[in-house]
């Protein structure tokens, strides 16, 4: 079991040993947040065929929550779902006996063990909303006293960028976090809104005295109002503001203009993101130039037909340079994920 620092308690085992039982599906409760789309239907079909032929060979792991008649699944949701489908299709066990699942019955997991187990499941899940992840991560950080991204990544299986994104969400006060858990998708604020808005809010508080005076929460309220009023049509559009600011670095008159525009953007509810900042971002030309640079870089490298070099020092230098290129390309590729189209889900 990993421990993160000497003063910290050991992380409890998620799946301790238990005793074996044979359970019918009616005695089992599916995982409460393990949706059907988690599983690849083709893989599930293969497993189902196998179970139909040989039965469930590897025991699932279950526990009984206090007071609950049924056993909750810790591990083996796919096997359980295959058996459920087989029962619905009228299949039985050997000699007409009801289909059963061998189950290792263990003690209920502790809160932190249960959370870490859910994280391990959700690593395979495509569309787990980020805000519940962030709230779970917050509990892990508080309970284990751990803040370091690498250690958290090891514990939860979340990638470094995912952890960073969760931490950004947790920087917002609870009343804003709640808006991303609204059951109504029409009024829910997507988690990405906060992640994209954060650098803009930081910049405005730092560079514009009127926004600083307004305060962080009221400035955030202004952006929420604008989003609801569809003056921010896509959360990706926040990037135009940051780009406008970054691109004007060597052009002081434009920089002043951009800052004034940001101030107006916060204070005037009618100002829409694209119409306000498009003039500062000559996007098409820059994207075309970047495309040409990619093609040129690739074709030039290929022209060298480099496969090996006898000089170790040169080899190391080249490998280091290629690593840097790879890291930059990876970060750029990640920054460009999402869509500018407001109809495309951003979360």
């Amino acid at each position, binding site marked *: 079991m990993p421990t993160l620092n000497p003063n910290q308690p050991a992380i409890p085992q998620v799946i301790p040993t238990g005793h074996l039982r044979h359970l019918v599906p009616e005695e*089992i*409760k*599916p995982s*409460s*947040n393990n949706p059907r789309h988690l599983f690849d239907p083709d893989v599930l079909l293969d497993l189902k065929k196998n179970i139909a032929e040989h039965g469930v060979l590897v025991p699932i792991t279950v*526990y009984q*929550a*206090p*007071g*609950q*008649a*049924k056993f*909750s699944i810790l591990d083996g949701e796919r096997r359980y779902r295959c058996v459920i489908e087989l029962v619905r299709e009228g299949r039985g066990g050997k000699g007409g006996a009801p289909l059963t699942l061998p189950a290792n019955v263990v003690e*209920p*997991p*502790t*809160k932190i063990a*249960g*959370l870490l187990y859910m994280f391990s499941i959700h690593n395979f899940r495509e569309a*787990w*909303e980020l805000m*519940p992840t962030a*709230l*779970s991560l917050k*509990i892990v950080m508080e309970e284990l006293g751990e803040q370091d991204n690498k250690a958290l990544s090891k514990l939860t299986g979340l990638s470094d960028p995912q952890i960073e994104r969760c931490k950004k969400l947790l920087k917002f006060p*609870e009343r804003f*976090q*709640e808006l991303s*858990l609204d*059951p109504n998708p029409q009024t829910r604020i997507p988690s990405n809104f906060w992640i994209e808005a954060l650098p803009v809010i930081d910049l405005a508080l730092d560079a514009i005295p009127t926004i600083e005076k307004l305060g962080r929460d009221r400035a955030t309220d202004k952006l929420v109002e604008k989003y609801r009023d569809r003056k921010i049509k896509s959360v990706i559009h926040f990037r135009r503001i940051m780009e406008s600011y970054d691109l004007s670095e060597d052009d002081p008159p434009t920089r002043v203009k951009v800052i004034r525009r940001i101030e107006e953007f916060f204070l005037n509810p009618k100002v829409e993101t694209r119409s306000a900042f498009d003039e500062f971002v000559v996007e098409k030309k820059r994207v075309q130039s970047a495309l040409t640079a990619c093609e040129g870089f690739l074709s030039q490298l290929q022209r060298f037909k480099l496969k090996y070099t006898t000089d170790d020092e040169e080899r190391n230098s080249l490998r280091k340079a290629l690593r840097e290129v790879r890291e930059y390309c990876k970060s750029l590729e990640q920054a460009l994920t999402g869509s500018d189209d407001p109809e495309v889900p951003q979360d």
Partner: protein
Amino acid sequence: MRGIIHSFKAALRFHDYKPRRLSLLSARRWVGQFEKKDRRLVEHLLDNVIYISESKTRQILVDQNAALMRRLLDAGLPMKKLIYVQVDDPGSSSPVMLNLLRDAASLERLGCKFADARDSFHLNKTMNEVGEGALIYVDDFIGTGNQFCEERNFAAKSFVGTFSEFLLAPSICEEAFYRIGELGIEAFTGHVHSKAERPLHANSSIFTKAEKDRLSLVCKGVNSKFGLGYRNLATMVVLYRNAPNTVPAILRGSLNQTPFQGIFPRHSDLPIRKIG
């Protein structure tokens, strides 16, 4: 004379129906809207209504809750580990039932917690504080179970800790009972409403086929889309607070009660009173 006695009994039996009080006169008026040949049948349908009065609702909730609490105490869960959860908007039936139970069973004094399934943030916080315990959803009537399962599944995304789950409700349709059971939620209820108890349901044999067809036609005349209630459930449970939207249309009446007056109009079926 027989008709007057029947209406008198109905007025007595359903006297505490909240959305609109029932009197002998209004019961007579309701029956009088049907063609003479249908009146006996309609009265027979009314006899099959399973009415749950306010005192009965309170009694069922308190009794079922006491049974559940005993079980949870035996399993080692003290009251402070129990989180009672409302599953719908404020003002709808679930929070009303929860308030009724909270006051009648002194849940607050016992140290129980309260949460709203739609407020995942606070539910998550409460579950995190409690760590291990039981979630007890409270509602008045569960029809198909669709709405309940949707609300619960949304909230489940933010679950944390080890919790058993239960549902407390005075009445649950058999369709929902099994569906909720599949989610691993155990229902504590005073009444499982079977299809056989619903005279207009295809699986019931209370009425003959001809009688069923005739009344179904009359229901469709009142509401062409939901004549037999939402999803054709044709349920017969009516709670003092409101009739479910799954009851046959002749019991609820038309929207705004025009042209057809119902005997159990829902709050949303009644015309809005002008203020001033």
